């Protein structure tokens, strides 16, 4: 019994529950600080972008391994941004210390693969994933605001579509 309590306490210490509100605040500060103080620029408002930073890592590596000359953002020219690698490490650590890591087999893998391809292409077309579109909006970029507005409309349409399919 005593052992159980200790496990519960240690879980609480190393892996606290965080609210969405707190996460949003931490991520916004990190995104702005990365651009303002740690050279994650240009382009502007580039502090966090899962799609663009992932693209930089892939195209930079491809350019090194082959003689391709695929687009890499200026911030990633010398050495690529490692945001996506960090997210995988940070989330993995959090999942392990909280006991939430569990391997689940993929269901409908082809569909998931296609979703990944489409979201990356949409994000590169709009020059930002959902995070950077909002970050650009906050920085005063009209184009970013248009992209974010379109993203919100897309989310609303898809949600109503999902609800309709679920209720049939």
């Amino acid at each position, binding site marked *: 019994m005593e052992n159980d309590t200790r496990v519960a306490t240690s879980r609480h210490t190393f892996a606290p529950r965080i609210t969405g509100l707190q996460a949003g605040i931490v991520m916004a500060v990190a995104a702005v600080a990365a*651009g303002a103080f740690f050279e*994650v620029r240009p382009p502007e408002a580039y502090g966090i972008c899962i799609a663009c930073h992932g693209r930089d890592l892939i195209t930079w590596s491809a350019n090194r391994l082959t003689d391709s000359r695929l687009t890499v953002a200026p911030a990633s020219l010398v050495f690529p941004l490692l945001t996506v690698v960090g997210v*995988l490490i*940070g989330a993995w650590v959090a999942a392990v210390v*909280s006991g939430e890591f569990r391997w689940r087999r993929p269901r409908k893998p082809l569909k998931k693969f296609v*979703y990944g391809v489409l979201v*990356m292409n949409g994000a*590169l077309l709009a020059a930002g994933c959902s995070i950077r579109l909002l970050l650009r909006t906050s*920085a005063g970029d009209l184009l970013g605001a248009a992209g974010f507005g379109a993203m919100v409309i897309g989310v609303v349409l898809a949600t109503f579509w999902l609800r309709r399919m679920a209720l049939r």
Partner: protein
Amino acid sequence: MTVAAVASLVVGIVIGFVGQRSRMCFVGGIRDWILARDTFLLKGLIAFGLVAWIAFPLSELAGGAPVGEFGRPAVTDLLLTVAGGLGVGYISVLANGCPFRQHVLAAQGSGGSFVYLTGFFSGAILFHIVVSPAILSILP
């Protein structure tokens, strides 16, 4: 430039940890609010936007690099950005999470999100080799 790489790795680890503990998602907030009037993730989305909006000028006051001018967008850029944004929003809801959330899910063992990521990164190569040149060839 290597400063940026190290900083982005640290930022990634921090937001990855925070994202796993909070289940934060940048499309899930709107979805949850429509489906169940649940504001847990929506608060995070709004907080991110507001805090960044305040933090940009504050960081400049604190000696950070200022945010440059953006200028007026051209019509073609606007159309492409809107099309891309619509796609990101719509497909991300079908895929059950924004790209950030998919990375977090993959890191906690979701095979489906892992497959999503392989598509995500292949998509980057596809975009620069096929999609982007095709769009540029159509545009005047």
